[in-house]
């Protein structure tokens, strides 16, 4: 084997360019950008789906789309936003930021990281290919059996959904293993667990949730697949099957999943607030413990999604209490964030606005959550627009606001350009107003009885006005994202060049160039506290001496850096997996052929660097 070329020195590794270099990249920063860009595109796709739904619901007895198309729209909207927008947007920040924040040169398994991205893309494309062949999934984002059984969904639409989610789950699991090892095992010297930035902590909790919760949906989907393809009886009540089996398995995954969606945003906010309040995060260890608690309790509350199915008073009470308890660590965090702002010297940037928006909107979502944590109340609210309001306050008002706070905050680091702050602030206000105009009335609509997932309604129910208002709000949100796109467009062409540390930041990523060099750190820093860079610049604020700055890298340092070279096996492996899985929709021969191809690519992938060190292969 040509072992020498296996690792190239950092100096020679001036970032290569061109399409091929992106296809074969194993650089965590580029993979982060790939994740972020794809996620934003799918976010727009999901947004367009939402706008069509809002247009349909703008007026009673509307006929823009029919019932079937409407079912497809809300199913694909939900699935897209959860799995193709929020999760990969979080993944973009995990990828780009975690190695920088812990002082590492890359993730633990760079090629596995590339594989996660390509497998994600494969799943996303398969899901959306269903539109092309006219069989878009229509069973809702939680795909309840028995609606999804062959008997009631005979076409291929649910097959697309099952296979797509299965592939996406695989991608998340691989990324989960990778980031657990990266965070636990790749920290710079001195970075003890309690010195880790809070974003990294929240990411770690998320990875544990992914690794432990995704198997439940994997199994649920496998069982559904066996029911649909091989006639097994898992979800067949006629044969004695339990109609609640799916619901339990799905929500055992589903509730941890909502924390998978919110914790990254909570981590981002915990980085943004201290930077722009110029104060350390108030009670940072408590924020960390609360995050762990939330992750832990997240596994014990799933049945609050099932109060209406009649589980009996004991189960109802237990899950109700657990659900109310989980609001406590959540509330603790909110107080910590407010405490961080308290008497800080605050700079109002777009990033900070989005974080403030996050706190306010998330409080409202949390409050409606605690309301339907009570079973009698939930019986009134479940399956109405009230739940739609709740989930959008936490997912849009929470996750999306938090993620965009992160986007504004880290944009200069990632692109080397400053975004326009005025346009950013405009984006924020339009989005905040649009969001509340869209979703606040849904609380009221739900309480006066409007069910979710209806494609139209009669004119005399008193729902007309607020539905119209909601639709207007949705278009306001759309306009706010046009402002964001214009901002990006404008500043990428002629924006101010970002310095390494434009915000007077606190953590390690601001110690290096914007954008960072391929190898991130010329010299791996030694860490003395949670806000390492702040300690270097300003000391601890109590008259202590500043932490020592790491020495500038010498030529020799740079020459001794080894970065992993590009590889095309990740994309080939992902492509052959896609070929195999989509074979389930086409022909068994394709499955077999794809399986063999996958196996072949796995071997090539596994053996690509078997024995990279020359001295070892000489033995």
């Amino acid at each position, binding site marked *: 084997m040509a072992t020498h070329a296996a690792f190239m020195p950092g100096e020679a590794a001036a970032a290569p360019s061109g399409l091929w270099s992106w296809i074969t990249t194993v650089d965590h920063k580029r993979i982060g950008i790939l994740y972020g860009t794809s996620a934003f595109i799918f976010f727009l796709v999901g947004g367009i789906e939402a706008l069509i739904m809002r247009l349909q619901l703008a007026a009673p007895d509307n006929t823009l789309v029919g019932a079937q198309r409407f079912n497809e729209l809300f199913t694909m909207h939900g699935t897209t936003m959860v799995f193709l927008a929020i999760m990969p947007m979080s993944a973009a920040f995990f990828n780009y930021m975690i190695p920088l924040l812990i002082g590492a040169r890359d993730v*633990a*398994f760079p090629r596995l990281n590339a594989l996660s991205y390509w497998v994600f893309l494969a799943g996303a494309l398969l899901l959306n290919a269903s539109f092309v062949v006219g069989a878009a999934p229509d069973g809702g984002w939680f795909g309840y059996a028995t609606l999804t059984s062959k008997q009631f969904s005979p076409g291929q639409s649910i097959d697309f959904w099952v296979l797509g989610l299965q592939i996406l789950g695989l991608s998340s*699991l691989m990324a*989960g*293993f*990778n980031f*657990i*090892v990266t965070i*636990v*095992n*790749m*920290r710079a010297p001195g*970075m003890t667990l309690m010195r880790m930035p809070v974003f990294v902590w929240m990411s770690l909790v998320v990875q544990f949730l992914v*690794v*432990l*919760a*995704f*198997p*439940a949906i*994997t*199994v*649920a989907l*496998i*069982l559904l697949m*066996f029911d649909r393809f*091989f*006639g*097994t*009886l*898992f979800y067949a009540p006629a*044969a*004695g*099957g*339990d109609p609640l*089996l799916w619901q339990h*398995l799905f929500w*055992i995954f589903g509730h941890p999943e909502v924390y998978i969606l919110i914790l990254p945003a909570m981590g981002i906010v915990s980085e943004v607030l201290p930077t722009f309040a110029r104060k350390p995060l108030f009670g940072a260890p408590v924020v960390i413990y609360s995050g762990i608690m939330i992750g832990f309790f997240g596994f014990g509350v799933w049945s609050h999604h099932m109060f209406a199915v009649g589980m009996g008073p004991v189960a109802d009470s237990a899950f109700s209490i657990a659900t109310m308890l989980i609001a406590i660590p959540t509330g603790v965090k909110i107080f910590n964030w407010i405490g961080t702002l308290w008497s800080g010297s605050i700079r109002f940037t777009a990033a900070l606005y989005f974080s403030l928006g996050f706190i306010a909107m998330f409080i409202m979502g949390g409050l409606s959550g605690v309301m339907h944590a009570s079973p009698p109340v939930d019986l009134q609210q479940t399956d109405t627009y009230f739940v739609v309001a709740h989930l959008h306050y936490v997912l849009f008002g929470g996750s999306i606001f938090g993620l965009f706070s992160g986007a504004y905050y880290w944009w200069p680091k990632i692109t080397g350009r400053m975004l326009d702050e005025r346009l950013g602030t405009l984006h924020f206000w339009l989005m905040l107003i649009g969001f509340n105009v869209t979703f606040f009335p849904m609380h009221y609509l739900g309480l006066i009885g409007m069910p979710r997932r209806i494609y139209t309604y009669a004119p005399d129910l008193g729902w007309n006005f607020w539905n119209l208002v909601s639709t207007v709000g949705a278009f306001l949100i759309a306009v706010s994202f046009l402002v964001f796109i214009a901002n990006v467009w404008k500043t990428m062409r002629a924006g101010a060049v970002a310095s390494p540390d434009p915000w007077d930041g606190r953590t390690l990523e601001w110690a290096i160039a914007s954008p960072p060099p391929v190898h991130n750190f010329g010299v791996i820093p030694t860490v003395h506290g949670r806000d390492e860079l702040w300690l270097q610049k300003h000391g601890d604020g109590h008259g202590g001496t500043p932490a020592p700055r790491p020495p500038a890298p010498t030529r020799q340092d740079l020459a001794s850096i*080894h970065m992993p070279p590009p590889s095309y096996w990740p994309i080939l492996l992902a492509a052959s997996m896609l070929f195999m899985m989509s074979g389930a929709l086409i022909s068994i021969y394709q499955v077999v052929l794809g399986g063999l191809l996958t196996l072949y690519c796995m*071997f090539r992938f596994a053996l690509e660097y*078997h*024995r990279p060190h020359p001295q*070892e292969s000489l*033995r």
Partner: protein
Amino acid sequence: MSSAHVAAHAVHDPNTGTTGLDNRKMGMWAFLGSECMFFGTLIGTYLSYKGKSISGPTPHEILNIPLTSVSAFVLLMSSLLMVLALAAVQRNDMTWGKIWLFLTALLGAGFVGFQIYEFTHFVHLGLTLQTNLFGTTFFVLTGFHGAHVTGGVIWLLSLWVLALRGKLGPQDSLKVEICGLYWHFVDIVWIAIFTLVYLIP
């Protein structure tokens, strides 16, 4: 290799991290944690459907405990051979390393053979995936375990082929160790399945 050399090597090993553990091994542990949930969910499904079939055949009519005890014993013994294989590779005794690796795979394949026989036999007795809830849950649970064993056999044989071509030595013992972790895990899962599905009436 002198111990000083080993120490120096360890410092430069890009795979050894903050905790002093190897990245790849830690990744395997994370994967196995996930697999626990995977099999836990499958086993939970089996148990929650136990005795709920509305038609036969039922487990005690059909399960052949003596035969499966033999196959369980075969799988357990393969775990022992796996330990021997790793020890041989670590002390650079590749002759025995090859033998033990191959025999581990062989016993694993033997277990899969038993399972194929068992499945065909059950089908002849009228129990298929579609017969009743027992068939459905039984075949899917044990089938997924069998698929894991099959994957392990392929993995072991790949290591064996590498060893035959002189590309596996003590410096690769970690790869054998990781494969061993997986193999022992699959074994332990079988103990759980064997107890819960076969032994407990």
